């Protein structure tokens, strides 16, 4: 790691004694961005193409970063046929176009499905973080060993006496949160009291959804296949239900002692529901409990005041509410003033809706638009990313006293457009009404 990056990342580490003023931070972040550009454009083909097209050879100003940002969708820019047809060698070649890796050098002969491909790459030092959308097409974010080490150095909690720790999800999954959970479980999880869903997350199931959707679009799927698929999905859901309930019961069993709980909002709500079924009221958790909240509802239906209900349910525990995106190395933690704080080492950017133009903050230091960022921490991928989220970013500081930009009122653009617009045209994309909606 270069000196500037090292200095920046060390100085912004939580608990660091170093204090950098805002101007110095901004300067260091740009210097780090430029260093990374010079190094990584030699190894990330898409970055090199982008820099050449934009005519950007050095980063001296935040405006230089804008044309170099990748859409978050770049990590699913592979042709879906590679996955559907099991061309894992080709998928590895694609991975190398968006990262500094040499995934193509990892032998994937004999790999049978996407889960095996990810496992094989992991053995070869490429840590693919996957996520899937409703379309069934997965995004693959390829991190390397240095990236994983950095993430492990920034865990939400590190220093703690041995205690029960639970993750309200599958611990065997190619996801950041699963890796972090396992690192924390190793650090302070009390043997015999580490809980998570044991069945590994299988991306192959997502791929089956994608394959079926494609077959439906092509008109080759038979109605009986669709029916069988839906029956199978129902069966799997029922099976998992039992495992989820067992996990939530385990968490409830530890509520009289300090414990650590990680989970998305939807699963926290499920915990509350199970507790109520068991006759467990609000505020029964030990005050030494640490609860991390993140992510979305994942299809769980909740009342409008779910957050207040969940907080009342846990009672006076330590809470950490985070907002994050898999393309950034740090999470945005909510302070008592209800705003999410931008990790200090990451360059905050706000763009117009198209994601093309940098928006300046108004006189009050605030600006609303598409959230984008440059993250110098990454080694295996380029740190510039344009998110799918709209939010208000406040560059003016927060009353809580923490320095740096803050984020509030986050909504996903894909949810916004669903609100409807009567700006009509006759040209359309082949979409849900033909493809059919399966397994969502």
């Amino acid at each position, binding site marked *: 790691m270069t000196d500037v990056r090292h200095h920046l990342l060390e100085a912004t580490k939580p608990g660091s004694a170093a204090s950098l003023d805002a101007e110095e931070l901004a300067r260091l972040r740009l210097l780090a961005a430029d260093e990374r550009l010079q190094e990584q454009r030699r190894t990330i083909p898409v970055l090199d193409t982008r820099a050449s*097209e934009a005519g950007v050879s050095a980063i001296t100003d935040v405006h230089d970063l804008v044309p170099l940002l990748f859409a978050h969708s770049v990590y699913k*820019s592979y042709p879906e046929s590679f996955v559907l047809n099991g061309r894992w060698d080709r998928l590895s070649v*694609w991975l*190398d176009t968006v990262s500094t890796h040499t995934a193509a050098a990892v032998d994937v002969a004999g790999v049978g499905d996407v889960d095996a491909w990810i496992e094989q790459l992991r053995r070869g030092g490429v840590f693919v973080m996957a996520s899937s959308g409703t379309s069934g097409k997965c995004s693959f974010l390829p991190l390397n060993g240095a990236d994983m080490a950095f993430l492990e150095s920034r865990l939400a909690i590190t220093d703690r006496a041995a205690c029960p720790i639970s993750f309200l999800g599958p611990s065997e999954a190619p996801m950041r949160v699963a890796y972090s959970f396992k690192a924390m479980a190793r650090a302070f999880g009390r043997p015999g009291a580490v809980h998570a869903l044991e069945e590994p997350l299988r991306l192959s199931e997502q791929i089956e959804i994608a394959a079926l959707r494609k077959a439906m679009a092509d008109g080759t799927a038979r109605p009986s296949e669709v029916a069988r698929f839906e029956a199978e999905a129902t069966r799997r859901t029922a099976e998992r239900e039992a495992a989820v309930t067992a996990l939530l019961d385990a968490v409830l069993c530890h509520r009289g002692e300090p414990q650590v709980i990680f989970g998305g909002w939807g699963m926290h709500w499920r915990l509350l529901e199970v507790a109520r079924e068991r006759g467990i009221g609000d505020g029964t958790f030990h005050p030494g409990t640490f609860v991390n909240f993140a992510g979305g509802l994942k299809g769980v239906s909740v009342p409008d005041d779910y957050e207040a209900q969940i907080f009342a349910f846990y009672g006076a525990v330590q809470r950490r509410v985070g907002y994050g995106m898999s393309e950034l190395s740090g999470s945005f933690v909510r302070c008592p003033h209800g705003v999410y704080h931008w990790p200090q080492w990451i360059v905050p950017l706000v763009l117009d809706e198209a*994601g093309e133009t940098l928006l300046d903050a108004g006189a009050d230091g605030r600006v609303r638009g598409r959230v984008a960022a440059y993250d110098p921490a990454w080694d295996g991928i380029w740190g510039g990313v344009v998110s799918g989220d709209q939010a208000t970013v406040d560059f003016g500081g927060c009353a809580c006293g923490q320095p740096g930009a803050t984020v509030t009122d986050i909504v996903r653009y894909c949810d916004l457009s669903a609100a409807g617009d009567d*700006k009509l045209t006759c040209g*359309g*994309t082949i979409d849900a009404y033909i493809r059919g909606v399966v397994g969502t």
Partner: protein
Amino acid sequence: MRMSDLLESVAVPHVVKGDVVEGAADHHDAGGMSFHTPRLDLDRLVWTRAEPLPLADTNVDEIVQVLAAAGEHLRDDADGLLRAALDLLCRTSPYERRILENSYAELWRVFDADRMRAMVAGELGGAAALDGWVRHPDGGSVRAYPSRIIHVLAGNAPSVAALSVVRGALSKGVHLLKLPSNDLLTATTIVRAISAVAPGHPVARSFSAVYWRGGDDAVEGALCRPQYFDKLIAWGGERAIANAAKYVGPGFELISFDPKNSISMIGEEVFESDAALRSAAAAAAIDATPYNQEACIASRFQFVEGTVEQVDRFCAQLALELAAERPLTSAIVDPPPRDVRDEIDALAGLEPMYRVFGQFDGRGLVIRSDEPVEFSPSGKVVNVVRVPSLTAALAHVNVSTQTVGVFPAARKAALRDALAAAGAQRLVPLGMAAGGGPAGLPHDGFYPLHRMMRWISDQD
């Protein structure tokens, strides 16, 4: 958006049963535009079933004359209203002014008397069933009775409003036109032209054109009822159609001009000579680019028979041709959005499996692949898919495939049954996608005028 656009609210008049209604009671922000309209009077937007329809006793010949006169009025635009509609559209339209001017300059042709008569002949077999009861050869009589129709217009091309008015008047029904936020003045201007040439005429009294926000349940829930209207014609986006569909029920029918895509099929004959290659690439570019490829007739995927080397030659020539300025195409368009650029860059990195011709400079770009890319190419981006034979392309045709341009045209006959079976709706010689062809042909797989009628029988 310019600051002046933000500050200046545009006055959008309504037309109710032929009368202009002005006012600024309601303010709207939609489609990147700030504008005000008169307050909607829902009661005045319906034609009660207790009174006969205005055009009940007017014959088709007279309607054609009125429309033709309105067409001339629009062509001359002496009152400047069409120009005002054009000026407003220029503020929000993604197209340059020249394209919109060309589009408006041709608008009056929709009102050509011969074309309208051909439409009636082609779709209904003539005006007889519109003007009266027609004897069935085996006994009894049939009449094409008019309907009460709500039209949810699309704003990407002014011809949508013109066609809606022509079909609506010829059907003799009554028509409530819902203005799209991306074209707030064209439909009212056309209806006002009718009032200008024939004040108080039943044709004029058969049309209202008003704005409400698409999906506004307070308005749509009140109007979209079989007591008031028989049919709803929806143009455009999937969401608009889905929204319209929720009102469909017994007695209230949806006629949908679904969102569509178009493709090209180019046979190996293209490689028989350089001249053939050049002319086919030019024709392919013409088909790909109407309204900078935003129109449903614009070809996005082009299936080409040949070896990689041959298909790459076609791609290179096509990329050159895409750069040309054409009447409905800009020389330089906005580059593709960032996510599409990223995807294309990733594909370029996979050469030779994929190959990209051209740059993100808005002049046009071609991606060669062995199967269609997953995004919908737009903004002068064409995906050329190499196929061993044109029949292999049929796997990628479905009911959203509207127009298929074929080269050479002689191969259409061998493909058309299979294309129809797969879902396609219109075949043209390559290069003719934007050519309207004769009036009275089906549109999107049906005869619109025929669907707009209620067919009544009187058995002996």
